[in-house]
């Protein structure tokens, strides 16, 4: 009897071996680069000679936080995050999902598909399309349309407007994801709750703010976390559209990191920027976990 019990015990534990290859893979190509990132952030490693570097302590971090360009980059990133992710994608996403929920099935399917096509478009293509669409000279699609209404051409990718332009492009790209999350959230609200609130005399606006939004709390938190992380790590769309310019006006942190490492060859400094991005992302994730635990 004891022998049988022991055998069962061993057989069951054998299955845990499947973790080993995965952990090794993750360890070498995911966790080890994280370690390297921290390590190199304390060095002056340079693209010109990566074999030779010396440890600088916190000098890279000190330099970053006293550099106007970096502070400006954080500022640009925050604006980009708040306006394009939180206001643009999340808030607009809830509204669109709510509006879609009251429309006819096939209409809803068509509109959702169009919004999703944007989300599925590879970012390189999206960047090129938006670059052309907002082009000033020669006139892109938007300026040609404005011309039909007698409005003068606008230089959307100029220093003053470029940030707004990448925000719009990013909302365009990411809205589909939020709409998907909120649509499934709304479809999870029991129809009898909606009916009851209607009978109780709530108008569409009170229904939206008093019933839909509170019931979507969990979807909102999930969406908020994911799109914040997506946007914090966004690179391709902005890089293709503006390359961070003109004059650093769209120099979000990922682009700043890339340019520091590969245009200025300061890989040590670039790693320090990377570590700051990672810390920010972790802080956001932990905030999210705490807010979920509060439920």
């Amino acid at each position, binding site marked *: *009897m004891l022998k*049988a*019990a022991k055998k*069962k015990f061993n057989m069951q534990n054998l299955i845990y071996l499947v973790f080993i290859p995965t952990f090794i893979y993750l360890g070498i190509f995911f966790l080890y680069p994280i370690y390297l990132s921290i390590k190199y952030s304390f060095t002056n490693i340079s693209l010109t000679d990566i074999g030779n570097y010396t440890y600088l302590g916190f000098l890279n971090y000190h330099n970053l936080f006293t550099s106007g360009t970096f502070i400006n980059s954080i500022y640009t990133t925050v604006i980009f995050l708040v306006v394009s992710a939180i206001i643009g994608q999340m808030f607009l996403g809830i509204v669109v999902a709510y509006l879609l929920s009251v429309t006819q099935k096939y209409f809803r399917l068509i509109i959702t598909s169009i919004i999703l096509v944007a989300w599925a478009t590879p970012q390189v293509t999206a960047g090129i399309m938006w670059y052309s669409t907002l082009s000033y000279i020669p006139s892109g699609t938007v300026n040609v349309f404005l011309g039909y209404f007698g409005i003068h051409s606008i230089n959307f990718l100029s220093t003053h407007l470029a940030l707004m332009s990448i925000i719009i492009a990013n909302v365009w790209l990411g809205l589909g994801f939020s709409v998907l999350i909120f649509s499934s959230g709304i479809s999870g609200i029991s129809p009898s709750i909606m009916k009851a609130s209607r009978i109780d005399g709530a108008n569409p606006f009170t229904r939206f703010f008093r019933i839909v939004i509170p019931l979507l709390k969990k979807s909102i938190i999930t969406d908020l976390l994911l799109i914040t992380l997506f946007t914090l790590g966004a690179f391709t769309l902005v890089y293709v559209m503006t390359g961070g310019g003109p004059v650093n006006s769209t120099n979000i942190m990922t682009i700043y990191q890339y340019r520091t490492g590969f245009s200025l060859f300061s890989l040590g400094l670039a790693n320090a920027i990377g570590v700051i991005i990672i810390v920010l992302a972790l802080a956001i994730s932990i905030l999210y976990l705490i807010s979920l635990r509060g439920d």
Partner: protein
Amino acid sequence: MSSVEMKNITKMYDKVTVLKDLNLKIDDQEFFVLLGPSGSGKSTTLNTMAGLDTPTSGNILFDSEDVTYFDPNKRGVAMVFQDYALYPHMNVYKNMAFPLKMKRYKNDYINKKINEVANILGIKELLKRLPRELSGGQAQRVALGRALVRDPKIFLLDEPLSNLDAKIRSQIRNELKLIHNDLKKTFVYVTHDQQEAMYLGDRVGILNDGVIQQVGTPQEVYSHPKNLFVAKFLGEPEINIFELDKNDGGFKIGGVPVDGHNFDKLNKITIGIRPENILLEKKSERDMPLKIVIRAKEFTGSGFIIIASTDEGKEIRIISDQANMDVGDLITAYIDYEHAILFDEQGDSINK
């Protein structure tokens, strides 16, 4: 031939004890029903019999052979699940063939066996269908069929009827009873539905908080519950309960003393009386009167359920075949002393 014996079974998940020192003996060919509310441990008991769970301590014997650490496929049991657990990617035939294929039976035999069982269950036309094309009743018949083809020693059924609607439920319930009569095999059936338990069980074991409360024939557990939990859990409408404090050295309802010896040591007793045992006319001098106001009358088809309240404001239910009274009437009803069940302060039943 297969009896089941569970000896001192304790099952713990992490630090939660689900079964506490459970002892149970199920006879060969018996239809045994494990009855209990959800979370009482009845499904865990069944899973340990099946070998899907291993008890933390204690032993399980099939025909006095210790099978505690046997794998499920070595135990010769078949199991039917509440959600049918049909394999969604296999049609009905393949579902039923699966246990036989696992035992490496020849295709001829498998074919013969499935047809035989399909005939018994009336599912011959369904053999080519996929589970998602079946109604709930059909799916449960197939699940039953998958258990039957194996000729197991013991059938384990985990709330097999609770996902079905009322009509099909009673139909399959009848069929189950007939199948058991024909097969003469041991059935262990888990349910939370006391009516189902009464109807099906040769014996019923009532489980609460991982502890067996009482084992007995349906009549025994209904009429002679060992404790208040069993009394309340069985019967619909629920048993009427009166808690009495000692008064002038005895217990009284409506001025009539409650007969009984060994009351000296008790300060409180509880009387349980089933709704059908509250009389509208006195039968004996020992019956206890209740002044009641009629609150509602429900017609059940065979009689009436009368909902009334006593002058102390306690709501009681009476089953009666006559109802020559109206809502609001003030009448006197009687607790039939002969059928009254007495409990002590701990809720255990006491002799009159």
